[in-house]
């Protein structure tokens, strides 16, 4: 599945996304496994909440990280990665 700008995603069923103080990172938890996310992956998935469109996420992060070149491409590939891993699913 490829991503369109108006798509809305949410954290997949039976998965949990949360900030971990001890690890200083966001994590995704699911049956039999977990993934610790690096800073930028955590930033993106924090905005994947079943309400924000992909467009909205891209704009919000562009605004937050004005100095980062080519950020849109990174955001889209992160969303695609999370989708391929089934950490997130379509909400609209």
């Amino acid at each position, binding site marked *: 599945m490829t991503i369109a700008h108006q798509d809305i995603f949410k954290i997949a*069923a*039976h998965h949990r996304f*949360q900030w971990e103080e001890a690890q200083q990172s966001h994590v995704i*938890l699911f*049956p*039999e496994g977990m*993934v610790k*996310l690096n800073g930028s992956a955590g930033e993106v998935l924090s905005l994947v909440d079943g309400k924000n469109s992909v467009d909205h996420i891209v704009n919000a992060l562009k605004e937050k990280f004005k100095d980062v070149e080519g950020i849109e491409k990174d955001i889209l590939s*992160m969303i695609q990665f999370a989708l391929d891993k*089934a950490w997130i699913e379509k909400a609209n």
Partner: protein
Amino acid sequence: MATQNNGVAASVTHTQPLWLLAEITYRCPLHCAFCYNPTDYDKHTQNELSTEQWINVLRDARKLGALQLGISGGEPLLRDDIEEIVVEAKKLGYYSNLITSGVGLTEKRIQAFKEGGLDHIQLSMHDITEEINNFITNTKTFELKKKVAAMIKSHGYPMVLNVVIHRYNIGHIKEILEMAEALGADYVELANTQYYGWSLVNRNQLMPTKEQIDHAEKITNEFREKVGNKMKVFFVVPDYFSDRPKKCMNGWGEVFMIVTANGDVLPCHSARVLPNIEFPNVRDKGLMWAWQDSPAFNRYRGDSWMKEPCRTCPEKEKDLGGCRCQAFLLSGDAESADPVCSMSPNHHIIEKAIEDAKNPTLQAQPILFRNDKNSKKIISGEVNDLIKDFHATP
């Protein structure tokens, strides 16, 4: 159980437990021949931790960084305080998993778990036939397991089935996978028996042949292709048939912590077989000390303890020399390479075990089922001939 690593994983600078396995009781209504619990568990059934002590364990482990919680046993549902423990786990932010045979799971309890915030339930299944299910578990639990599977599904839980694979069910892999699909399983773990505890004592009776395992893996792969993403199938490869050992627990005291029914804190399921190590107990100095400072948890961290051929092996980071318990149980030297490794000077022990398991006379020996009576026999030395080849009581 997997801690994934990939391009988006964060790096960690110091060791923290990620997984806490609470072996909340050794009591169990099933008597599985392949159980990994210690065969002398009967020693530890009289002094189980209280609810309050478990809640403190959960809090302390969470402070250390643990976030995946397995509530296991024995059969955890034999305790009536799992509901309280689940609520506390949720409050603390754990992703919690009840690992159960299904015996004792009622509508009332599952509803309480759901409301309390339990995240998932892992149900053990044994076979598609009632005969083998009842034989290997030494109980009549076949119909019950199917009912429990449906109950788990109807409460909106992901269905995680764990099937321990051995000689008696390895020929039914395809049918087992089809049953899992029909039950609506989301995850299926085909766990080839690893030989610890009761399964080590019963190794000759349980071990399949290499050909059977290869065939089972082939069928599993074909099934995966057919079923796609809707059901995730894990095939846990049996280490005896591999020429390199497993990276046991992802490293000693690296990510995994077990607290046993009586409060012992262990870096792996069977660590108590190791000689000259005093494992900490939560009743004494607490979890923080146990994880960070106890001599037991520091014993095999890193690689300075390694002997040859591991010490200079270019692959040592890959498997960290394998399993210390297996090395000691089979060779009598906990610091030696896991005998599974083809470079181990003790590899012949594994080869002999594989040969022995093909010997019809040894295969025909009665199985020692996991129960209190047999555990007492192990403790009293009454069945010493069954464990004479091992360097500790499995």
